[in-house]
């Protein structure tokens, strides 16, 4: 497997083009404050406010390297920095033609090309940025640590294009490993072929297919059996919102109350997508489904979604968290805690799971929708640890976007009117206020 490297991330919304980074760069490179020597360039159009950032991305497959006729540019496989060997360079400037980012440019003062070298790992621009718009990030740290773990699901499952359940399933099983029993009640994840036969199709770990009503109860029984024979095996459920919040709720509630040891993951796509997009208890207000139609008499669902994760907090679970595949690092951190918590009792993770098919949006918008749900506070990211006894926001949103920023991306909300938007906005704010009440010490 390859390796992921560090690069400088740019958060446009935090940048006001103050030029501190440019000054810092030229000071580092040349010892003077002269923008012409800076390898980072930031510009803002006064009229539109739009920002332009020209900076080397330290690409994984750098075009400048592939096109250099002199072998003067190369990617350092240890650090990932795209380096330049002045001695070999013939000044042909082909690199400036093939870089799509303006990341390498010719400086007539030095008569050489110039490009960012990350200041050998501690970039001056990042340190100089007063607003946090620049950040040195290891974009895919997860890949470095988890890339070598075995994928415990065979290739070629029939998920819809753009479904995040596959991402979730593969990554979760990679981390948990083969010492697991997986329960897949009726729902999309089971339906696409994950159950499989003999570990040759579907998942390569023991999988069973409970009823929609008894997932948690069956896992509880299995766990008790393994405990009795002295084997430590992780119990893991991937259930939909119907199998969790509606049909399967009594068994989950009972298992949580009995402090059964398992990781219960609810993949919440806000309806019965597998059977034709019917509404569920977690379908949000205003949403179109095949059973909450849009017409003269009704404009989507008339009631609000059941606050399922909060209900699990009230069950005094060992661990409860909300997570999203748009914030994978956040999810991985929570999965670690859930694994530990499941040794003592119930660990419940509620995954925000936008469904391109049932929600009516293009598959390419999945992650954007996940991000917007968090940035509007529609789906806040938080966790509850029983030992701490309070809710902790893992990705607090200081200045939330209006809910339209989220709703407008999704076809199932296409019909909603201003009154409905106001209702959703008010409900979103109310939900956050309720959650905040749980953030205080016990």
């Amino acid at each position, binding site marked *: 497997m390859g390796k992921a490297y560090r690069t400088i991330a740019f958060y446009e919304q935090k940048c006001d083009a103050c030029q501190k980074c440019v000054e810092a760069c030229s000071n580092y490179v040349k010892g003077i404050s002269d923008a012409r020597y800076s390898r980072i360039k930031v510009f803002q159009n006064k009229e539109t406010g739009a920002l332009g950032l020209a900076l080397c991305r330290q690409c994984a497959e750098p075009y400048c390297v592939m096109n250099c006729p002199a072998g003067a540019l190369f990617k350092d496989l240890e650090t990932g920095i795209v380096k330049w060997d002045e001695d070999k360079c013939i000044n042909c400037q082909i690199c400036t033609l*093939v870089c799509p980012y303006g990341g390498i440019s010719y400086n*007539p003062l030095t008569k050489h090309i110039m490009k960012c070298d990350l200041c050998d790992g501690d970039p001056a621009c990042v340190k100089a940025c007063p607003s946090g718009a620049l950040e040195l990030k290891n974009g895919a740290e997860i890949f470095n640590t988890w890339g070598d773990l075995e994928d415990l699901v065979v290739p070629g499952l029939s998920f819809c294009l753009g479904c995040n359940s596959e991402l979730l399933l593969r990554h979760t099983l990679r981390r948990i490993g083969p010492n697991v029993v997986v329960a897949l009640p009726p729902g999309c994840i089971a339906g696409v072929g994950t159950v499989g036969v003999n570990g040759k199709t579907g998942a390569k770990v023991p999988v069973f297919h409970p009823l929609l009503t008894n997932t948690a109860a069956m896992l509880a029984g299995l766990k008790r059996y393994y405990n009795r024979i002295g084997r430590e095996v992780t119990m893991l459920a991937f259930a939909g919102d119907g199998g969790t919040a509606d049909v399967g709720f009594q068994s989950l509630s009972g298992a949580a109350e009995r402090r059964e040891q398992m990781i219960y993951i609810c993949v919440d796509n806000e309806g019965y997508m597998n059977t034709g997009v019917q509404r569920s208890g977690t379908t949000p207000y205003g949403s179109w489904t095949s059973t909450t139609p849009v017409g003269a008499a009704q404009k989507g669902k008339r009631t609000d979604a059941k606050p399922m994760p909060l209900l699990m907090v009230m069950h005094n679970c060992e661990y409860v968290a909300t997570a999203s595949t748009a914030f994978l690092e956040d999810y991985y951190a929570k999965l670690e805690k859930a694994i530990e918590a499941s040794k003592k009792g119930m660990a419940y993770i509620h995954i925000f799971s936008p469904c391109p098919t049932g929600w009516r949006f293009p598959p390419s918008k999945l992650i954007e929708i996940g991000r917007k749900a968090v940035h509007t506070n529609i789906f806040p990211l938080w966790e509850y640890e029983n030992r701490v006894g309070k809710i902790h926001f893992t990705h607090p949103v200081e200045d939330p976007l209006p809910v339209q920023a989220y709703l407008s991306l999704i076809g199932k909300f296409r019909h909603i009117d201003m009154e409905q938007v106001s209702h959703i906005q008010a409900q979103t704010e109310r939900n956050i206020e309720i959650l905040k009440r749980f953030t205080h010490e016990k």
Partner: protein
Amino acid sequence: MPQSKYLIVGSSHAGLSALETIRLSDPEGGITLLSEESTFPYSPTILPYVVSGKAKPERVFLRDEETFKQLGVTFKMNSRVVEVDPKKHIVRVETGQTWEYEKLLLATGGTPNRPNIEGLETVSYHTLRSLHDANRLRASIKKAREGIVLGAGLIGMHVAENLAKSGLKITVIEAREQVLPGYFDVKAADMIAKLFSQEGIQILTGEKVERVTERVGRYELYLSSGGTVSGDLLFVSTGTKPRIEYLNGSAIAVQDGILVSDQMRTSLEGVWAAGDVAQARWFFGNSKKLNPTLTNAVEQGRIAGGDMAGDPALKPYPGGMVANTYRFFDNSAFAIGLCGPLTEDDFEVNQIFLPSSFFYQKLVFKDDYLVGAFGINTDLDPGILYQLIRRRVSLGKEKSRLSANPLETARILMTQIWR
């Protein structure tokens, strides 16, 4: 008979970018790279710099034993391919060795064109395509005093400059009406030609050579206009033609070069072609053209490699266009897309022409799109303009901004669209 899942013929930019792209999708499949050279791979683009002494011949190699080992590539030097049998999936090398392949990439590049001039076939002259050519030319410079360069394309102009810097008296002869006709308009070409004249290089444009003679190391070129040019070193750079002679009898579809699809597939099952040898879609209009440039070879190699390895996310070739940089007498220039003389008049042109400061910037628009750009001593990012053209970015209101402030507007568009 040795077998290889991927067999790549030709070890320059197209071949190298193909094998590296194959490795991204297929970490294990066997790759064999055949080269007719007796060295590790190098770029033809470096050769003028080898002639000038700026690049040391022993330091021009793009890959070594170690990098091939890391990539799991078998590299075979001295392996000139003489025959392809597409039915049996076999390639025969000059030495008699045969290779069986599953997927074959033809990246055999080009050879210098020999213009149709009476007597040229009987005289010895220089061209520049291999390291051997470069070393030979470098050695000849020391003995020569007056050089003649035939063809004022990028290689001709590069060599003319370097020979002049080495102390030779140089005459450049170009059949067309301007120097660098593929890259610049007449005004820019005149500006460049004037600089060359000031540096002591005689430039003759619109001049056809009818006949060449050589007598005891002395060349006489008879021009159709009546004059003669003489010298003791003759360099010919009138373009290249694809190396496809080994494909005779293979039934592969060939026109000017090997015809390829947008995935670089040839008409033969299991055979791809990329680089100077391939005739592929042109970005403007509906034709297929050769496009023998470095950047094009890298891109076509990348697409061929991706398709050979079955990359499901592969984007098809958007079409070739002019795209190059040119450095001369400490000046920097670039040219992209429709940058030569324009034949139609429905283009919108934005230009700043300051010959006294040796500055020329030109943007060519058609409707809502940027379709061409060149610059001499500008501070623009050629790479961003190249993307604006290739991605057919609809400019709308940004068009006037791009004209007024191309550097920063282009960077903003990049940041907003493909950052």
